[in-house]
């Protein structure tokens, strides 16, 4: 693992974007293990799929 040798120079455009990063969400994620973070992603995907399905059905019902 050689990552510690990589230096990331500040980029002015990215610095602007950093101001809008919600660190409260990130801090919650950093409390989790890698596996817990991925499991959370799966749960979110399931929610998204279910919402898409429900929205499709509701939209079709109106047509």
């Amino acid at each position, binding site marked *: *693992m*050689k*990552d*510690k040798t*990589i*230096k*990331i120079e500040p*980029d002015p*455009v*990215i*610095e602007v*974007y*950093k101001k*809008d*990063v*919600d*660190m409260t*969400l*990130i*801090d*919650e*994620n*950093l409390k989790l293990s*890698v*596996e817990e*973070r*991925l499991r*959370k*992603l*799966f749960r*979110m*995907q*399931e929610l*998204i*799929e279910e919402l898409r399905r429900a929205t499709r059905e509701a939209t079709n019902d109106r047509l």
Partner: protein
Amino acid sequence: MTDYKNLLTLLVRGGVQFVVVGGVAAVAHGSARTTEDLDVVYGRSSSNIKRLVEALSPTNPYLRGAPPGLPFKFDEKTVTNGLNFTLITNLGPLDLLGEITGGGSYEQLLPYSLKVVIFGIECHLLGLERLIQVKRAAGRPKDLESIAELEKIMERANPTK
């Protein structure tokens, strides 16, 4: 929906050499953003391509977004003659990358990867700093928010950087 667990399990159990990159790697590092596909950089040796094809063939890989009926066959010849493939499988979308901008090949990325155990399997995940470099090098406007988030995560871990 992507069944990351089973896709990764197939690759690992099949002895495929690969590094997880992209959105899943970002989530693993703490990103709060969501993603819908699995991106992996795979080794281009003929033996690894053979293992890759054998591992993934049961999932019926097909070119994502392509019309049905194209003469696409996921076999060693196709993978050898190509490089990067955006696929749909029975387990969800999968991007197989022979090389990535700013990161290069599997062999070039491996020294910058972390070995993690997830779902009882051991796989390589691209390290945070290298992931940032690769996303910067890709130069895609859609990555700007993601890069900003990853850099904030890096700053949390290393306040002096």
